[in-house]
């Protein structure tokens, strides 16, 4: 469904990504891990079409994402949605949260997601269904972002992200700003939605434990280079790249 073909990107003559290739099949969830500065978020932005690669291309359902324009691009965008790290920054502070949740549906009046078929004519009802999907109480519909906890805001961002029933949801560090207890709740929610809606996930994180829980395949980036790619159940295999092994060890160390 998504093919990234040897893309490279340079900022201020420093290479941010060198010759990265990867693919995501329908319904699959792929984790991208690496330290800060490893190029994770740049890769995410290129896949979403927010940045152009210097070299290489991204094909999504057979079309080259970076040559699409106008209506064709808009039609594709619908299938690619994102949930950011900072739940506060991704919501409009001046809108009651239910309006933020249904905003994408207003931009795409012709899209009728399967789970909103019966209520597509009623914005408020759509918001209610989406709230229910992400486990939020309908009492919170009228609240403003500053009246919600970090975990609640992140659920709102997820509700918005799935509202158009996208094929691919890119999650860029979706839980790292949340309390530990809330992180687990949000990860459980994302995993359940992925299964229920048959979403594909591109899950970007520096937390190898979160990626292990969420993803079937893992890609490791270091200084803009793809150093390792494997099935999650091969995470502890002896043939892992030394860098991956070190990340695993670090994560185990912390628990002692």
């Amino acid at each position, binding site marked *: 469904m998504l093919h990234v073909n040897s893309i490279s990107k340079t900022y201020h003559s420093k290479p941010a990504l060198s010759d990265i290739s990867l693919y995501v099949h329908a319904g699959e969830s792929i984790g991208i891990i690496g330290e*800060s500065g490893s190029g994770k978020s740049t890769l995410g932005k290129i896949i979403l079409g927010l940045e152009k690669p210097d070299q290489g291309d991204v094909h999504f359902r057979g079309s080259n994402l970076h040559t699409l324009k106008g209506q064709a691009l808009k039609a594709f965008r619908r299938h690619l949605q994102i949930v950011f790290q900072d739940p506060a920054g991704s919501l409009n502070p001046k809108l009651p949260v239910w309006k933020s949740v249904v905003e994408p549906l207003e931009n795409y009046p012709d899209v009728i997601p399967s789970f909103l078929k019966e209520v597509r004519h009623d914005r408020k009802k759509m918001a209610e269904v989406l709230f229910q999907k992400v486990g939020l109480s309908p009492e919170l519909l009228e609240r403003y972002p500053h009246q919600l906890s970090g975990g609640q805001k992140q659920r709102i961002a997820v509700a918005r992200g799935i509202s158009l029933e996208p094929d691919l949801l890119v999650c860029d560090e979706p839980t790292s700003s949340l*309390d*530990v207890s809330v992180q*687990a709740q949000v990860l459980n929610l994302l995993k359940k939605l992925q299964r229920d809606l048959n979403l594909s996930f591109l899950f970007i994180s520096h937390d*190898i*434990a979160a990626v292990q829980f969420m993803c079937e395949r893992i890609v490791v980036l270091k200084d803009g280079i793809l150093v390792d790619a494997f099935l999650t159940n091969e995470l502890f295999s002896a043939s892992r790249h030394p860098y991956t092994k070190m990340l695993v060890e670090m994560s*185990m160390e*912390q628990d*002692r």
Partner: protein
Amino acid sequence: MFENKTTTSCENNLLTVESLSVTIRNSRKKLIHNLNFSIPQGEIFGLVGESGSGKSLTATVILGMLSKSLEVTSGSVTLGQSEITSLSERELRNIRGRDIAYLSQNYQSFFTPFIKVGQQFIEIIRCHTDMSRKEAKKVAIHWLNKVHLPAERVFNSFPDELSGGQLQRASIASAIMFRPKLIIADEPTTALDVLTGERILDLLSELKEELNCSILLISHDLKHIIKRTQTVGVMYGGQIVEIGKTSAVVANPIHPYTNLLLQSRLRLNKHIQHELPTMLGEPGLIAEEGCPFTKRCPSAMESCSNKVPMNSLGKHHSAACHLVNAEREERYVTR
């Protein structure tokens, strides 16, 4: 080490917080409730709890920087010989930045943008001493080297030319230049990735040895605390609900909140998990009467609406939970 009220600061304690309570001035709402802990010279003490539990507020009181809308209604904070809670603003200013260094989660905003890092170091140094610019630069370079940064390059950089980890290191360098007795590190690694964060914590431990100071390490995540601290206090709703030697608390958590915090840590697993264990409810759900955790506690019972005193479980471990008496029999006596 963390007795209840009964003993005052023992000889080698650098910092002692005693029966500290903080309320909002006009609503009388208690934000911090009867806090007791102390940090011995040369030790790292961990304070852990979720968002809003009162960790940063505790740090603010120790720094003598409590907002005007809040008020210390009881108790005291003592650093060495000085009782911080009774000092004047001028005396406090002398202590802050010199005796106590503060590192915050927002290291991004530690330095002013568009002014070179070195320039900012020189200003900080000249504000506390009467050194010439040249001498001040020497001092700055010395400390930038100490935190393992390419000193000259960082000195001549603008803040936005440095990575997150480098900025945090530079802010550490500037915080420790006057050899503080206490470093308060409030979520110093939360915004960093695991490797960068671990290296920052290694650096802090190393500096602690060199300066022979104490560290108050604050985090919402036990995994940042476990390996680094000798003693840990677990906070919920403005109270310490469990405190003790870190190894004892981790091996034998008594308070259900501590237990759930430990369980909900994200960990690598040999087997793929289908669902992560979670905690009931949201942070901030705090009971006003009795045990603050009542509304989220899986073991809550009727008596939990009554006040819970801190009960000690042996010399190095105590918890404020009605289960303690029952647990004590099981865990400590029968062994």
